[in-house]
């Protein structure tokens, strides 16, 4: 009875094909093209999406430099419209989502639940090819005569119709989105099916790591939201080319319908972007505090309620249209603050009385929490219609969502520093990592704070030139300084990857991790595991290495928790 955890056993029975590690498949580029291994696909996703981050970041730097003077002429008005449209599109459609659910989740989720691969490996490969071709299609707009799409990443009708935006750039944008949209849907199917059907024995739903939980909820949200976007894009294409009048007044259509459809996808999309990064922070903070995640079940229910509420808040992007039901969307949006607050307090509770190790990953995660707190608090203002009327389409909104998405970048970088060693087998340089963190974290604040003030002083979004006002100019210059700092942090990251390339072997478990990915080798073998520990809590690897330090419940719940982690009631296995 004292030996709680059985020694690990091999996962493969005699009847399962052996010898996966010496893979006899093709090599080189053909290996990349034909692989169905979730780790290689996930790595392709990660590399491609970080490339997109760099491309989108370059657009951002050009935008920021254009705005350093009121009447600057670095780019023309038309070029500016293309730049911010593609900046938003690349960051939202091609970086943040694919990085999280195509990249890290693709690699980590199957390993965290003890699965040999994703449920549909060939569909997974197809997802990547659709994503890559979608990205190429969207960016190809820059090489057409009319330039890239220029109607903003939200493509509001009727600006996006064929009269106001003729040209192939807009069509390429729609086509690229169709491809990446399907890629996201397939990944959502894959994640949901994998998590529902491929968990290891003993890995019950309420023992899944929070990252996996968040990816499950993300998968469900993708299935709810993305088909709506795809349908909307088809309608938009029909309006542009087949003479329908779904979104045009002249033929009896309703322009606001596009906004309803777009934001019905768009707001769940915000959480599709955010939840994976919440999950990353929730993996990183407990490991580097050497404690279980505080309030595990509260965390799960918070994630579920965010997902549930996210379907009922889309029109808070449309308050100023004057045609939506203000109180309903206001209270729904305000309520999202509650589960988000629970998460923040749970992260603090996890660190409380812990033994915090300030590795780069942990710093990034703490930076994520702080930056997300700022973005979240300013989001509460925008849930109130009168304050939204006041700040809508000004730089206040720009600053709000840049606080949020830069928090996601911090979280994502944390994820890379945390799981990078598992994926590649080698550690990243910690000193460079910390330099990167401080540039990224401080740069983000220097970047967004002047924008909040600019918004309150009335500067609208999406303007390349603005009225002469020394204060606006000064604030814009500061924001550009922040953008440059963020740019430097990205360069530091790229340098770090180069400098640390195959230098310091990580070992299987460099951080004393909690979850199953730290039980296998770095990088994991083909089909992920040679052996698995018994799973008796949401921290199987920790329980294996520290059997005497199991999670404790609160007060009277201690006994119940004790039996939950398992005392070896072997008789119960019916």
């Amino acid at each position, binding site marked *: 009875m004292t030996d709680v955890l059985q020694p690990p056993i091999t996962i493969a029975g005699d009847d399962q094909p052996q010898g996966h590690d010496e893979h006899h498949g093709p090599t080189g580029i053909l290996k990349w093209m034909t692989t169905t291994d979730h780790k290689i696909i996930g790595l392709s996703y990660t590399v491609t999406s970080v490339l997109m981050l760099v491309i989108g970041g370059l657009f951002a730097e050009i935008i920021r430099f254009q705005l350093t003077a009121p009447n600057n002429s670095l780019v023309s008005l038309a070029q500016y419209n293309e730049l911010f449209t593609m900046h938003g599109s690349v960051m939202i459609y091609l970086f943040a989502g694919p990085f999280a659910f195509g990249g890290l989740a693709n690699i980590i989720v199957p390993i965290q639940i003890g699965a040999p691969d994703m449920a549909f490996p060939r569909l997974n490969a197809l997802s990547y090819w659709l994503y890559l071709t979608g990205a190429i299609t969207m960016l190809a707009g820059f090489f057409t005569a009319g330039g890239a799409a220029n109607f903003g990443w939200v493509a509001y009708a*009727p600006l996006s119709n064929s009269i106001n935006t003729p040209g192939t750039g807009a069509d390429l944008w729609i086509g690229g989105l169709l491809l990446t949209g399907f890629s996201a849907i397939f990944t959502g199917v894959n994640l949901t099916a994998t998590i529902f059907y491929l968990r290891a024995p003993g890995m019950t739903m309420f023992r899944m790591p929070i990252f996996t939980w968040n990816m499950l909820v993300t998968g469900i949200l993708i299935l709810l939201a993305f088909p709506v976007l795809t349908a909307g894009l088809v309608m938009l294409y029909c309006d542009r080319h087949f003479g329908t009048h779904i979104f045009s007044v002249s033929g009896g259509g309703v322009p606001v319908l596009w906004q309803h459809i777009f934001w019905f996808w768009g707001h769940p999309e915000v959480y599709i972007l955010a939840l994976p990064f919440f999950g990353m922070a929730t993996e990183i903070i407990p490991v580097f505090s*050497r404690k279980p995640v*505080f*309030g595990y079940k509260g965390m799960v229910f918070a994630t579920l309620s965010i997902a549930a509420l996210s379907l009922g808040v889309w029109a808070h992007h449309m308050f100023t249209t004057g045609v939506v039901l203000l109180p309903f969307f206001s209270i729904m949006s305000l309520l999202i603050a509650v589960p988000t607050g629970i998460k923040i307090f749970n992260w603090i509770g996890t*660190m409380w009385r812990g033994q915090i190790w300030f590795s780069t990953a942990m710093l990034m995660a703490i930076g994520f929490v702080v930056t997300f*707190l700022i973005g979240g608090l300013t989001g509460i203002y925008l849930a109130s219609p009168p304050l939204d009327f006041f700040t809508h389409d000004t730089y206040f909104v720009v600053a709000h969502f840049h606080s949020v998405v830069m928090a996601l970048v911090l979280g994502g970088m944390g994820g890379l520093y945390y799981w990078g060693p598992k994926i590649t087998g080698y550690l990243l340089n910690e000193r460079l990592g910390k330099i990167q963190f401080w540039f990224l974290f401080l740069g983000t604040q220097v970047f967004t704070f002047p924008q909040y003030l600019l918004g*309150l002083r009335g500067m609208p979004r999406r303007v390349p030139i603005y009225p*002469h006002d020394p204060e606006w100019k000064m604030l814009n210059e500061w924001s550009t300084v922040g953008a440059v700092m963020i740019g430097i942090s990205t360069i530091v990251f790229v340098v770090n990857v180069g400098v640390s390339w195959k230098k310091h072997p990580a070992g299987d478990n460099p951080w004393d991790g909690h979850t199953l990915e730290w039980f296998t080798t770095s990088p994991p073998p083909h089909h992920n595991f040679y052996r698995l520990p018994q799973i008796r809590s949401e921290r199987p690897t920790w329980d294996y290495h520290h059997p005497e330090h199991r999670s404790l419940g609160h007060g009277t719940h201690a006994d119940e928790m004790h039996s939950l982690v398992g005392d070896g009631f072997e008789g119960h296995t019916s």
Partner: protein
Amino acid sequence: MRRLVALPLAAIVLSGCTVPNFGANKGATTTSRSVFHLWQGFSIGAVVIGAFVCLLILYAVLRYRRTGDDIPKQTQYHIPLEMTYTVVPILIVFGLFAATLVVENKEVANPKTNVNIDVNAFQWGWKFSYPGSSVVVVGQTTQSPTMVIPVNTDVHINLTSTDVIHGFYVKAFNFSRFALPGVVNQFTFRAVNTGTYFGQCTQLCGLYHSLMYFQVKVVTTSEYAAWLAAHQNSSASQASQTATKQQTSAHVPAKYTPSSGAN
């Protein structure tokens, strides 16, 4: 914690003099002042909560640095604490929502008034017509048409667009509203200060979106009547401004000081 809920409500009651501005201004209309007070209430809540959470994070980060190889107590749940930080935010949220409803109802109210203005947004300019008279003011991009309104009078706006979606935004009114094609958006405001206020299109509407300026000139009631009478028959000359398109230039006139006299 109950004080946290009461604060935003209290801030609406209180005048803005004793509470900091948090970057916003009282504005030039009655509703803009309500919005400003709501802003102050939200800001107090945000600053208090934000500071509280940041201090917690800072304390945890400084106090619980890794000192040795010990493994801390593996506490995972504290049900009363978790309940507290679920219930208290819900109460705060409902407080904020109540305060929001009060101001929102003021903003969407449409009291009857004699001053009606039809605002028509187009690529890339504004047309202000005064029903009941023949006065029409039209101006494109940097011509910056001026909407003249009387002070201390309810002004009712019927806002629409002829082509794409535009944003009617006057910073000093702490207010914006979309001009939608096919929809007439109605709202009413009452300016309390005379002065000239800067307005601009906020919703991306194409190439010259950034040049789609206008001005709102708030004058005394008698000046307004005189202005209306004087332009009764000269509206043709105002409308002729349409002909002088300035679409090739990306030049902004030197002096466009946003807002004035808003405080």
